[in-house]
């Protein structure tokens, strides 16, 4: 089974500086990590390969530093990592990113499954996976929490819903976006880390892909960012003290007064 995992490099939220007075988000000093949800997609790919054989390829669209994200994926045990990087991709929105990823997946050739994490921790839109599926003309299942059955031509999976799950049967190739419940990701082994260090990571530029140059970067973007700001930090409020019965009474009274209950 040939599996493509789309991974994104993101700044670790806990290391970003949010400056509410300067209205600025400073990611220059942030630690760059594999998008946390993508770890589940990588693990799902690795487990499928272990059971059914084949190959797992990770692709990532980003700056040159994104190579590190692919090395992390290689250390986990994927077979190949491909970096899609070009200054021409600056200003890509989710629509253009999906278009470029779809063209890169086509270039990879035969595949059965494309995996994504359900969303990214920075922009959290969650729509790249379904959009890639539409560009590829293949079905997608989002929020997959369990793969019940799978072959190279069909799969039966559980899609998480608000109040339970839907059981979906789909033909392959298909795109799945996965949620955390699907597995528990492994940690990279020392051997994996060493191997990843010297592994060659090809870089594909816009020229290497069959792309319409008017449809990429800022010119191709369908959405335009207007501004980013840091809202004033939420402040702590009132503390209630005393015996449990007293604090319970005070809290209920406060909630009633605020018409919350």
């Amino acid at each position, binding site marked *: 089974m040939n599996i493509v995992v789309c991974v994104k490099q993101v700044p670790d939220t806990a290391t970003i500086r949010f400056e509410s007075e300067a209205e600025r988000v400073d990611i220059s000093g942030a630690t760059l990590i594999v998008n946390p949800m993508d770890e589940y997609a990588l693990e799902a790919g690795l487990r499928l390969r272990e059971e059914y054989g084949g190959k797992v390829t990770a692709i990532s669209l980003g700056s040159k530093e994104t190579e590190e994200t692919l090395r992390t994926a290689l250390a986990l045990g994927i077979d190949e990592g491909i970096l899609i990087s070009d200054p021409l991709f600056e200003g890509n929105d989710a629509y253009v990113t999906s278009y470029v990823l779809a063209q890169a997946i086509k270039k990879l050739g035969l595949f059965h499954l494309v995996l994504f994490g359900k969303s990214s921790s920075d922009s959290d839109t969650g729509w790249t996976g379904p959009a890639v599926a539409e560009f590829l003309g293949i079905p997608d299942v989002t929020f997959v929490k369990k793969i019940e059955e799978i072959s190279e031509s069909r799969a039966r999976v559980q899609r998480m819903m608000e109040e339970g799950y839907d059981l979906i049967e789909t033909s392959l190739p298909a795109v799945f976006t996965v949620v955390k419940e699907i597995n528990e990701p492994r940690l990279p082994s020392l051997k994996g880390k060493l191997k990843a260090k010297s592994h060659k990571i090809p870089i594909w530029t816009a020229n290497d892909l069959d792309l319409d140059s008017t449809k990429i970067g800022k010119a191709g973007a369908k959405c335009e960012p207007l501004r980013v700001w840091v809202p004033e930090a939420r402040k702590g409020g009132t503390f209630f003290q005393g015996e449990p019965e007293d604090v319970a009474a005070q809290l209920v009274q406060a909630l009633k007064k605020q018409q*919350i209950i």
Partner: protein
Amino acid sequence: MAYFNGVVGVAEQRNGKLQSTSLEVLTVARKVADDLGTEVTAILLGSSDGDTLAERGANRVWMVSAPELEHFQAGVYNQVLGHLLAELKPEVIVGAATIAGKALFGRLAANLGTGLVSDAVAIETDKEKRTVAVTRSVYGGNAMAQWVVRTLPQIITIRSKVYGEAKPKGEKGEVIQKDVPRELFSSPAKWLKSAEEQGQSVNLNQADIIVSGGRGLRGPENFALIDGLANAFGGAVGASRAAVDAGWISYAHQVGQTGKTVNPKLYVACGISGAIQHLAGMQSSKCIVAINKDPEAPIFKIATYGIVGDLFAVVPALTQKLKAQNE
């Protein structure tokens, strides 16, 4: 650009029941249409309550009924909506950022060759440019970003519980059954069945009140306390990542960066210290109550009401108090 006109609100039904988020969608669709001086067409796929939409602000409701539309199927819904939208050519499409909405609108944007800004928490219509600027939270709710779609139709999805439900208006719109070509009903990904989560209510996105438990509960059996308090409040049960990873409760309950983002009227965090990843999923709640024995817990920095104390004493006392009030 007169070619594009009107606002579409995409409603959602589950097992035939019109979802409350659809009435929130209608509120936003109506507001944008009023700002632009145009009309709202609500689209409802599958048999459900189109009259309510027509009574609450939709100038017309387009309904399509077919067995294949009774349950959400992203591929089929995308095809049918794409067909209807080609006829309507709206300027703006408003949908809900539910799990189904997240699956559907990304595909639809690619299908229509247009942009989507998801999870709106605020919108601002520019009447001259006829665009809608959308504010959404990024970096786990620590920052906000404003975006605009610069192609038509502009697709927007809204986060649940931000906008009120549309109220009945004096006049009623028209409810129209639409026929679409049958071939649109087939898709390679098929719904087989739906299964409900057993036990506690997990529809965190539609809950007005959520009571969450964390590591401070010390074991799965103590989630009974959280259940009890959630019941007394008439709310749903949430959990921190620590509690889910320990296997005390299922992932469907997880609030935070790798779980659900919620926005209830009241969020009660019991035995949750408040890691940034947890705060990412709940800090926009209107009122936050924290119960924790550690006065230094970060959750207190954002809590509207804080109780430093033993949850094993405070939670039962609070449950009792609420029950007494309810009687």
